[in-house]
């Protein structure tokens, strides 16, 4: 490639506005060189600079006594006791996965793992949140299969268990699927590493795979809407090599353990550009690189391409001169390239040389401090009021049997068993998984301690579409509720904010509302946001996805032996419902699936009540008083009861008694802050008293046992089905959906 001249057209092609270009000229005091233009263009892309979102992200709570590292590093860190810390983050790979699902999802997993182990942590568990269009569409079947295989292919090979996640299918994702991947690692509290290029004169070492031309301008792609020619963007997609990453993981952890590393950052999105400039920026130093020393895979690469390449499985390390040989030896042992490509400079400049000739010279901190920040206009969509009206009098209630509705709900891809998917993920490697996928939260023990980590990822995007604020509160509360249902105390959040084009005021309104919701819920639950990712421009031909602020929460379970699951354990236990059921059908899965209605307002929710619920669940479980706990969410009480019955094929007799509410609201309404629990008959009184003392309603609604799930209310038998029959629908629906009109 030859370097072109800097023209207005070239500036525009780099996604820079005239104003942004003006800033570049004033920072440099001259016209940028081609490589410099490339550097600014990726660093000031939405993906790297958060220019549309930064103003609002600042509102999120980030502190708590247990937070060791909040947003701004490769990942967030919390103290989990016993001298250990949990490092976690979630990140999206939406755009690449739509174009090439296998590699897109695989490299997403690779990227998030690097974020975790660059902090010095060994990755111990992954989650993912996936959203596709309807599976009746053959292309979405293909995307579904490809994404799942990609996650499996990478995660299984590198030996990190994928322990849970969520999958939704909705037409709003037909043009933009979402692939959000989460990982958590464990590190000794005094052995955490940061992405800082400290120490004037220290060496910069490049380690891992060679640099090729793959993924150049990948981040710019993630900052643009799709047009019809999305497929033509294929060359932008990177190829993952999980084996090399495994070697990189082991080599980095070994070098860290031996104290050979000063600072470290992976070369992911925006490659060498972001790693070098961010490391210099954080340390307030400079970095000087000689690009002719970078190991290259393709011939004829120029500095611009080397700086912008997004080749995977690469790391940038800062080491003291006397440790250089020892460090390189460790990488050699793992059959990896590690070469010196530059040094830390004291004058604050990012200097890029090519065979001794200057290709870029930029004040490093200015790249981030002088990056554009936009306060983009926001406006409530004109149809929002209309969307929020729901006249239930026109929706026929269930009069005799709710069996058909329940069957329909259990067969919906959003509710049905995902076993077909998680069987393809190695969810047991590392022998820590004590609650496997399928329960509310996954639980992973921490070897060498009594403790376990519980984790869950959640977002009901239909709620967020109907009311971004409430929807976001629900997302945080439900993820936390899932964690609390396993007996663990939710400690911190990582979020992945997936939205449409922020230049549209209606999308900005959704974004701001969701941020406010996350903020209020996180403050109430005392779960700060310690890391995250923003993915905007999830639009195709002007159609945006539902706002999808995916929330992942990690909690600590003090006694791993007490991990609680959602399944009824024995016949004769008392079934109780904590929380109040209201006539809340707006935005429910039931209305959507059984009546084709997606409108109204999401259920009301009070995060302080939610906090009280979590506290009482954790306390009761620590005392060994609970047999099961399952969060009531999509599909309401009926689906919750059915899922609780599936684990050990234990049925239940439930009577909701007299009520002024509609029958369908009792069965399928999604009122928040409710949990279905079971306890032995002897313990039921204590449990009831504790919940009442916590200021929450609780009702004894039935008993476990038999092989039938029967739910009565208002003197009617509304549900009466053999558990095995319901389970078979639940277990096989996803597979049937994927196999219909088999398409290769």
């Amino acid at each position: 490639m030859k370097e072109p001249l800097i023209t207005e057209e070239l500036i525009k092609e780099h996604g820079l506005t005239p104003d942004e270009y003006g800033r570049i000229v004033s920072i440099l005091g001259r016209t940028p060189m081609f490589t410099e233009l490339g550097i600014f263009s990726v660093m000031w892309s939405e993906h790297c600079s958060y220019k549309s979102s930064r103003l609002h992200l600042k509102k999120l709570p980030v502190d708590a006594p247990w937070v060791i590292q909040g947003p701004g590093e490769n990942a967030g860190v919390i103290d989990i006791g016993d001298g250990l810390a949990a490092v976690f983050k979630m990140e999206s790979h939406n755009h690449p996965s739509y174009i090439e699902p296998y590699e897109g999802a695989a490299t997403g997993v690779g990227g998030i793992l690097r974020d975790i182990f660059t902090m010095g942590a060994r990755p111990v568990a992954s989650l993912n949140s996936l959203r596709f269009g309807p599976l009746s569409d053959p292309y979405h079947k293909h995307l579904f299969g490809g994404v799942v295989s990609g996650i499996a292919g990478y995660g299984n090979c590198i030996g990190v268990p994928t322990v849970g996640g969520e999958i939704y299918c909705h037409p709003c994702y037909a043009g933009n699927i979402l692939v959000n991947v989460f990982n958590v690692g464990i590190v000794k509290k005094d052995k955490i590493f940061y992405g800082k290029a400290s120490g004037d004169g220290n060496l910069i070492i490049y380690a891992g795979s060679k640099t090729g031309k793959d993924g150049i301008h990948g981040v710019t792609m993630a900052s643009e809407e799709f047009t019809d020619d999305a497929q033509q963007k294929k060359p932008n997609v990177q190829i993952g090599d999980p084996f090399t990453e495994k070697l990189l993981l082991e080599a980095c952890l070994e070098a860290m353990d031996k104290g050979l590393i000063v600072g470290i950052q992976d070369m992911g999105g925006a490659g060498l550009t972001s790693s070098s400039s961010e490391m210099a920026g954080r340390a307030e130093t400079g970095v000087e690189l000689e690009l002719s020393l970078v190991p290259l895979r393709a011939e004829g690469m120029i500095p611009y391409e080397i700086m912008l390449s997004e080749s995977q499985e690469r790391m940038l390390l800062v080491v003291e001169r006397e440790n250089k040989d020892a460090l390189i030896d460790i990488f050699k042992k793992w059959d990896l390239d590690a070469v010196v490509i530059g040094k830390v400079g004291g004058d604050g400049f990012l200097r890029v040389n090519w065979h001794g000739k200057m290709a870029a010279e930029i004040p490093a901190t200015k790249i981030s401090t002088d990056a554009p920040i936009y306060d983009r206009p926001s406006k409530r969509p004109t149809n929002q009021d209309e969307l929020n009206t729901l006249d239930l009098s026109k929706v026929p209630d269930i009069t005799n049997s709710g069996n058909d509705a329940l069957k329909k709900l259990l067969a919906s891809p959003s509710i049905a068993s995902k076993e077909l998917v998680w069987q393809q993920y190695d969810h047991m490697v590392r022998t820590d998984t004590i609650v496997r996928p399928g329960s509310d939260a996954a639980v992973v023990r921490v070897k060498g301690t009594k403790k376990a980590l519980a984790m869950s990822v959640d977002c009901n995007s239909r709620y967020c579409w109907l009311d971004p604020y409430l929807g976001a509160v629900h997302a945080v509360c439900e993820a936390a509720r899932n964690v609390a249902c396993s007996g663990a105390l939710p400690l911190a959040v990582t979020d992945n904010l997936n939205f449409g084009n922020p230049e549209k005021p209606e999308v900005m309104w959704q974004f701001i509302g969701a941020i406010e919701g996350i903020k209020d819920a996180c403050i109430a639950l005392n779960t700060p946001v310690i890391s995250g990712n923003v993915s905007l421009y999830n639009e195709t031909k002007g159609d945006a996805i539902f706002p999808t602020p995916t929330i992942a929460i990690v909690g600590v379970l003090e006694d791993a032996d007490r991990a609680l699951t959602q399944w009824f354990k024995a016949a004769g236990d008392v079934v109780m419902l904590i929380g109040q059921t209201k006539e809340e059908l707006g935005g429910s899965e039931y209305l959507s699936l059984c009546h084709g209605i997606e409108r109204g307002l999401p259920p009301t929710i009070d995060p302080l009540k939610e906090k009280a619920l979590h506290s009482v669940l954790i306390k009761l479980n620590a005392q060994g008083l609970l047999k099961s706990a399952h969060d009531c969410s999509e599909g309401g009480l009926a689906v919750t009861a059915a899922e609780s019955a599936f684990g050990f094929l234990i049925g239940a007799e439930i009577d909701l008694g007299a009520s002024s509410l509609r029958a369908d609201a009792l069965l399928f309404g999604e009122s928040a802050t409710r949990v279905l629990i079971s306890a032995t008959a002897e313990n039921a009184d204590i449990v009831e008293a504790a919940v009442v003392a916590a200021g929450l309603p609780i009702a004894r609604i039935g008993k476990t046992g038999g092989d039938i799930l029967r739910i009565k209310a208002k003197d009617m038998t509304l549900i009466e089905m053999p558990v095995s029959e319901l389970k078979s629908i639940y277990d096989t629906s996803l597979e049937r959906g994927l196999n219909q009109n088999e398409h290769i």
Partner: protein
Amino acid sequence: MFAIVVFPGSNCDHDCYHAVKHVIGRPARFLWHKETVIDKDIKCVVLPGGFSHGDYLRAGALARFSPIIKAVTDFAKDGGFVVGICNGFQILLESGLLPGAMLRNRALKFICKDVFVRAANVKKTPFTATYTEGRVIRLPIAHAEGNYYADAGTIDELKTHNQIIFNYCDKDGNISDEANPNGALLNIAGISNKQGNVLGMMPHPERASEEILGNSDGRALFQSIAQHIEGA
């Protein structure tokens, strides 16, 4: 002393180490794949699961040329005990320490789940000597290439010399096609060599060695070989 071999890409090395050292409480150490000597104090070598060399080309195909394999081969010839689990089994097949080969699972997908296997010829290997003949145990599998294949002559040999140690079965012990997770010939989940000192198996006993993991059916395998070594 147990030794767990670490290949580049081994993922279950630490799991096996944990099972030996912390679950059954026996001495264990790691052996780097570039090592060429197996010390005298080592009585049992474990080739753990994972994706050695990324499973590129074929699972186990590149690992078999690691220097340690020559040492393991000599060690086995001298009667040393060797167990290959999952990828370790694939490496034993590729290196010829056990007969046969692995094809891709018939459903062409990676499968991670609990399966039932029936223990047969348990007295053939000291790894299974404490299992009762015909006992049905629950163990997890996690592989994409566990579809065992050998030609008819080899299968006859395996039968004649009682080398088939584990077969996939249902919870009642019936060896049926429905209970076969990957298409393996004769539902074969594990085999030994003629002498009985080398065992290869696709299921992961180390993942089923502790009550907290919901399953301890696999622990007896480690205990069995440990007791045998200590008795010898």
